[in-house]
């Protein structure tokens, strides 16, 4: 098996738009190309000439899995341009909404997509035959996340209650109180999930990544903070485009986002965890320790444990927010549109999501830029595949293919934004 090609083609609905391609010659990886088409480009054009108030709901349509993240980055960027400050309970409600989305998104990935890889099943359906109670637990946890998003967002998918300045309608304390019982159950289930994921078999694979995430003085980050890395980056979000650039690469329609002069970087749960371990709730920190995880984790395969810890944090944080909640006087702060440029990063489940808007005095969107987390991780995924395949090159073909796919899934890539389906096969030269 000296020369061969591993290919992952996106099938069917989006045929030809993207692929993974690994070429092996003389037992060395000679080429890795990951192609992901970027739908945000379409949305950027679609947004021009629209009113600022439409941005949260239009961008929420980019992804069925993380619409809240798109809404949050949109409203924060526009609020920055208009000089609007959303504080107090309204800000807490935004964090609560984000808790719901993290739970939905992470639980889906942990139970339905990632765990089957580790346990040797082709999918959740096959896993469910042997582990029906585990799968049912995952579905029930996800439903709890849905309940938060449905209550705050107005509906489960593509929430519609978010607006610049706050919400269209704020929930009563009593309405939020109805979530408490299921959130308490979810927190227990999340503790079990951490222990369950921690005992999965992990390949030995640590890399010297540059992790990038938001960092806030007191909070585990959702929607506020500076952008920091483990290699010295520490900038305000408004400086994002001075430090991060998007490069055209020949093999892809997509742009690769890189740190100027430094190259690939890593965003998402692992980055947040490594840069913000001290901001996790005591319960989440303790669970990490009990699971045998250090405060720094550099093995991307273990991201499944870190996601579980973030799920636990999200349940814990949701309960804290609900306990301290009082109905705000107004569901949104008042403001006047003004001409300007605003930008924001918030922590989508898979990492920082950057939005920038240029707005007219009437609030028309003149220009928009959106950089989703998956395109920021793209280069790191390619690097992982290159290094991982090299280290595992003597594995039988089917195992190697399997592990390549697993290595991509470590990042929970938001390919759904662009494509629904992905299949993988190896082609020998």
């Amino acid at each position: 098996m000296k020369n061969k090609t591993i290919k992952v083609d996106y099938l069917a609905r989006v045929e030809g738009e993207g692929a993974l391609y690994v070429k092996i010659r003389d037992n060395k990886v000679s080429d890795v190309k990951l192609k992901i088409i970027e739908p945000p480009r379409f949305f950027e054009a679609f947004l021009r000439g629209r009113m600022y108030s439409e941005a949260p709901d239009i961008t929420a349509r980019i992804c069925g899995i993380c619409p809240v993240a798109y809404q949050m980055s949109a409203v924060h960027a526009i609020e920055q341009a208009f000089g609007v400050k959303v504080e107090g309970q309204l800000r807490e409600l935004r964090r609560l909404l984000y808790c719901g989305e993290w739970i939905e998104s992470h639980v889906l990935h942990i139970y339905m997509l990632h765990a089957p890889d580790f346990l040797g099943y082709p999918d959740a359906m096959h896993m469910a035959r042997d582990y029906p109670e585990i799968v049912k637990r995952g579905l029930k946890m996800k439903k709890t996340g849905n309940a938060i998003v449905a209550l705050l967002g107005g509906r489960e998918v593509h929430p519609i209650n978010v607006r610049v300045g706050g919400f269209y309608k704020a929930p009563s304390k009593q309405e939020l109180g109805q979530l408490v019982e299921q959130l308490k159950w979810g927190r227990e289930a999340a503790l079990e999930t951490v222990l369950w994921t921690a005992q999965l078999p992990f390949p030995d694979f640590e890399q010297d990544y540059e992790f990038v995430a938001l960092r806030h003085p007191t909070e585990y980050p959702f929607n506020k903070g500076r952008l920091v890395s483990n290699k010295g980056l520490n900038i305000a979000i408004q400086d994002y485009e001075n430090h991060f650039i998007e490069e055209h690469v020949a093999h892809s329609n997509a742009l690769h986002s890189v740190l100027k002069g430094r190259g690939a970087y890593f965003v998402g749960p692992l980055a947040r965890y490594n840069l913000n371990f001290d901001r996790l709730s005591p319960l989440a920190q303790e669970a990490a320790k009990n699971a045998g995880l250090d405060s720094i984790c550099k093995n991307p395969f273990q991201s499944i444990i870190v996601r579980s810890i973030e799920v636990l944090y999200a349940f814990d944080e949701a309960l804290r927010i609900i306990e301290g909640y009082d109905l705000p006087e107004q569901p949104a702060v008042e403001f006047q549109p003004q001409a300007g440029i605003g930008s924001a990063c918030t922590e989508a489940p898979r990492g920082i999501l950057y939005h920038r808007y240029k707005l007219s005095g009437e609030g028309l969107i003149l220009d928009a830029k959106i950089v989703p987390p998956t395109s920021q991780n793209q280069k790191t995924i390619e690097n992982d595949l290159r290094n991982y395949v090299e280290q595992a090159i003597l594995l039988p073909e089917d195992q190697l293919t399997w592990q390549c796919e697993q290595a991509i899934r470590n990042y929970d890539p938001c390919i759904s934004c662009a494509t629904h389906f992905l299949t993988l096969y190896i082609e020998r030269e």
Partner: protein
Amino acid sequence: MCISSQILLIGIGNEYRSDDSIGLNVIRALKEQELPDTMLIESSGGGAELIEMLSSVRIAILIDAVSSGGKPGAIYRFDALRQTIPAQLSFQSTHVFGVAEAIELARVLGRLPPSLIVYAIEGENFSIGVGLSLKASEAVQKVVERVSCEVQDVLKEFRAEFPLEDEISLKVERTGTDLA
């Protein structure tokens, strides 16, 4: 989500992927027909939510676009209780836990409703953008007609299977015009 209507019609798709929105368009057209005893839902196809919806009803009809290499506009119909979803519609996914996966997982977990019909429509253009191709548009019209007939057929079939107490409770639950 609490679903009490008798027949659940779910159209699945992504508004911004051209023909992928076939299912959504079918549901919108059906809404105008004001069919009795139905609940119509537009969905982005999240598997976990589908399982949840399916396990809360007795009769469901699901409409989605596919790309299986067939003729654009072709309409396939499956009785999900009698057959598994064909392999060419059951794609492996890195990210989305989709329709075929949801149905098969619901089957394993014993959460399929007593009646589930799937309409799959072959799309032509799945590129980023809004609007349907001509073939997809024509197929939407046909599916709308077929589904509205199906609603009546399924009701009859269901009644044949559950003729006694169920029939009574169905009548009590229904608020629209009696189809019988």
